[in-house]
């Protein structure tokens, strides 16, 4: 579960190997516009912020998470500390058991939450327009995915984002192309909405499995929250 920043355009091509080893530069991207020579002339920590130590601590903290995959007791405490410095690809979703179970994907840095065990509370409903938006943005990809011979109408791939978990699991059994569309589209799994009958049967293991279809690496489940990291 190594952190992978490849999706962030942080490194200009001319940055040499030795610049890459510092976690400070990797995490905050401060070296983006400085050439190697200037970097060498600068004091390592001009404002005495002890940045390096801070980020080293966070790196260690993330390593802890790797070890601590199943149990998240320490995780909660850590989540409350220094959240502002957490890399943007560490996120969490929320699943609340009870009458309605629902999941929520929060934007990077939309954090500073208090994990609470408010099981059974109905907090909200799935925001359909959100899923619609993301589907629109990824229009090309979805069309391509449904472009198989003599089979499901392309539009079905769009409509899938309007289905709940149970129906998605049903649809993926219809044929191979739908199976690969449903399983291969992370957007469909960004919001996992589990209705009445299923929430009594679903287990954490299954939830982790389903959540990972959103191409996230699930770190753990605790108190109705699913902690995960984007895998891009």
């Amino acid at each position: 579960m190594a952190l992978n920043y490849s999706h962030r355009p942080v490194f200009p091509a001319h940055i040499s190997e030795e610049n890459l080893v510092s976690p400070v530069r990797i995490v905050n991207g401060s070296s983006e516009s400085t050439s190697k020579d200037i970097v060498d002339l600068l004091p390592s920590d001009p404002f005495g912020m002890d940045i390096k130590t801070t980020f080293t601590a966070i790196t260690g903290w993330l390593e802890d998470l790797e070890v601590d995959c199943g149990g998240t007791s320490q995780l909660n405490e850590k989540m409350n500390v220094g959240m502002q410095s957490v890399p943007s690809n560490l996120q969490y979703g929320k699943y609340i058991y009870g009458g309605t179970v629902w999941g929520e994907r929060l934007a990077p840095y939309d954090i500073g939450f208090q994990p609470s065990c408010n099981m059974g509370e109905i907090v909200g409903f799935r925001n359909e327009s959100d899923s619609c938006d993301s589907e629109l943005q990824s229009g090309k990809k979805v069309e391509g995915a449904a472009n198989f011979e003599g089979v499901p109408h392309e539009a079905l791939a769009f409509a899938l984002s309007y289905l709940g978990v149970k129906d998605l699991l049903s649809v993926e059994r219809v044929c191979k192309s739908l199976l690969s569309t449903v399983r291969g589209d992370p957007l469909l799994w960004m919001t996992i909405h589990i209705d009445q009958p299923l929430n009594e049967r679903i287990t954490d293991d299954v939830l982790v499995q389903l959540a990972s279809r959103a191409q996230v690496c699930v770190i753990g489940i605790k108190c109705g929250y699913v902690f995960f990291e984007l895998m891009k």
Partner: protein
Amino acid sequence: MAPKNKNPNGENVVPEVQQKKTQALILKSSDGEEFSISKSAAGLSVAIKNMMEDDCAGGVIPLPLVDGGTLARVITYLNKHAEDGASDEDKRKFDEEFLSGMEVDVLCDVALAGNYLDIRGLFHDVCQRIVNGMKNKSVEWVRKTFRIESDFTAEEEEQIKKEYAWAWEGVDSDAD
């Protein structure tokens, strides 16, 4: 019922008042049919609006991914939604009637067109409609309705079914 905006010869029919009121654009479908539509109605499609803003919409706009029948439906929708004085309630009623008369194939075509032309309201409503019928239905029902043939072997099918067996309790039987 929805106003027809296409006569039997496939020519466009736009209310005269509207023609006078706003300038018209010509939309050309994949099969070469041409439809005239007011700029205000066409502007409800984000894709067309962008083209108008970028000034690439001089004269005829070709829409190579939308066939004539579908385009006619989309234009009917746009005209209603651009109509002066149509209340939200009117529009909702119109949408309901407009969509309820469509077969699933047609709905699918309109959904694609709505996506392509970026008409969010239409796209959303149509997708919702397609999906509404699918809720809690069996795999076999989906195959039948959408005319999809299974290309799974019996073993493969059994295996996928087993994987999420917990999810299938209480799903309508295949006969429904």
